[in-house]
């Protein structure tokens, strides 16, 4: 896996975001390779979520450029970035709580297929959308919950619905923001298996921020360590694990946690 032979899906150069006098993200360069799973780690406040916000169009960068599949997407609004194939999840569950699980996914499928313009059909009988949504729910083992209201299912299941909504937009590049946060060990395993199998399917490129080092080292092809908005280290899990600065700045006493 040498960089030269890799197809770059996302190229970030000199990306920065200032809030007042503080650099939340400062001068980050990053090439993301197609079909890799790249984990971004770092302590709270390291700039991971801000970095996502810049990539997904939620915030405008103060400096730098973001090029996705050869196209400059810096400063594009979220819906355009989503249509190009970048989709993100949120750290805090961000789903449609009053809708059923199925409807949550159907919203994203409807959006993807451009069917939201149809005003004279009956949404609940839109077979194409339902077929796509049903297949995705099946794949995420959410079929049993399909007719439950999203607001009343368990926290872990909500996280899965969030991922289902993300995947329903058929992204090429998926940004997951702490997908296993607050999950039980079983649920964490489920998400890990899911990301792993999706990664192996060769349809997706994953960026994933995560605090659980088992998840990070279990999934990532490469790891980016951020610290105070800057890129500290970028490398394979082995390289990162061995890096003295990483140990000092972030992993510190976490040797036992790092066992894969």
């Amino acid at each position, binding site marked *: 896996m040498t960089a030269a032979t890799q197809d770059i899906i996302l190229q970030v150069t000199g990306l920065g975001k200032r809030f007042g006098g503080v650099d939340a993200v400062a001068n980050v360069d990053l090439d993301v390779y197609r079909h890799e799973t790249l984990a971004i780690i770092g302590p709270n406040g390291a700039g991971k979520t801000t970095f996502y916000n810049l990539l*997904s169009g*939620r915030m405008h960068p103060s400096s730098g450029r973001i090029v996705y599949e050869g196209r400059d997407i810096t400063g594009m*609004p*979220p*819906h*355009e970035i*989503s*249509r190009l194939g970048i*989709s*993100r999840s*949120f750290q805090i569950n*961000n*789903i*449609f*709580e*009053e*809708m*059923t699980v*199925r*409807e949550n996914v*159907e*919203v*994203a499928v*409807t*959006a*993807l297929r451009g*069917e*939201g*313009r*149809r*005003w*004279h*059909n*009956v*949404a*609940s*009988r*839109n*077979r194409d*959308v*339902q077929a796509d949504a*049903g297949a995705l729910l099946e794949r995420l083992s959410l079929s049993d919950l399909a*007719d*439950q*209201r999203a607001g*009343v299912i368990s926290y872990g299941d909500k996280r899965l619905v969030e991922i289902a*909504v993300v995947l*329903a*937009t058929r992204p090429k590049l998926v940004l997951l923001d702490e997908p296993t946060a607050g999950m039980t060990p079983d649920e964490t395993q489920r998400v890990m298996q899911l990301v792993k199998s999706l990664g192996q399917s060769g349809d997706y490129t994953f960026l994933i921020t995560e605090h659980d080092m088992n998840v990070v080292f279990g999934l990532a092809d490469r790891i980016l360590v951020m610290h105070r908005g800057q890129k500290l280290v970028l490398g394979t899990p082995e390289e990162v694990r061995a890096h003295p600065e990483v140990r000092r700045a972030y992993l510190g006493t976490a040797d036992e946690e790092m066992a894969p």
Partner: protein
Amino acid sequence: MLSQEKTLNGERPAPVALRGAARGGRAAASGSKAWMGWLAGAVVLALLVALPWVAPYFYIFIATEVLILGLLAASFNLVFGYTGMLSFGHAAFFGIGSYAVAMLLQAYQWPLLACLLVAVIVAMLLALTIGFFCVRLNEVYFAMLTLAFGMMVFSIAHQWRSVTNGSDGIAGFMVGSFGLGLDLQLGNPSVYYHVVLVIVLLAAALLYLICRSSFGLILRAIRQNPERVAFCGVNVRVYRLASFTVAGAFAGLAGGLMAPFLRIASPELLHWSMSAEPVLMTILGGSGYFLGPFVGAAMFVLLETWITSMTQAWMLVLGIILAFMVMFFRRGLLGTLLDWIRERK
């Protein structure tokens, strides 16, 4: 209609895959509930049709007003209950629809249907223009901007005497033919009531279709979480504008029906206090249900009629009822009633 809408909003019972719908339990909550909903709808419809023959003469006027204001409130609820935008300028579209019909009747004596068509188009264009600026803003800023535009439209109607006849409004027009070659005596309150009933039913059916469509699904998603919808690749602003414009068109239709009923189009129809009425009606009836605003309009008009016959303090009583609803029955009368029926089972 009632029970189907309920499944969209309320908790869903266990899936029932018996009725040959595309998906188990999707359109059909449960057989008996759907059946009761249709029965209730049929009874209400029959009563509405028979009203001029069974109710006192006075109630023909009440019912006509309820239907028109119900359509206004339902159009408002497309923006509020479905898309999540609290508009305080909805009377602008209602009022301009009234003026369009009044002016056309006065100047050209067009058939009513042609006048109504123009009212819809004019209101739609006004909503498109005002909405273009308003949908950029969120929450309270959106509400304030719609209020500001509403006041501007009111001022124009109030001050531009040479065109709108100022505070006197447009009056003294004759309501002539209906159109389509139908020989209807529109001057007869009972006939006009039936005309309003048919048009409002058709308009409500169309509005209901829009609410249940894929477009409506996206609107409901926008109400709950606009940001998430944007991250699904939807240009939220465009959908908000579409919702606002469609709602304006239906409000224009309601206004167009109001002018021949009142025999006048006056600036009060555009006043910001008129914009508050659909808001109040929707809260009274329940914004979570398609028929909520109609129920709210009926409550509003009937309470106004009954209470003003007893005391002058109608607004005080309305205020108390409203405060009570907002504090204890936030789902409105229809929502609370349907919740109660469901829990009893």
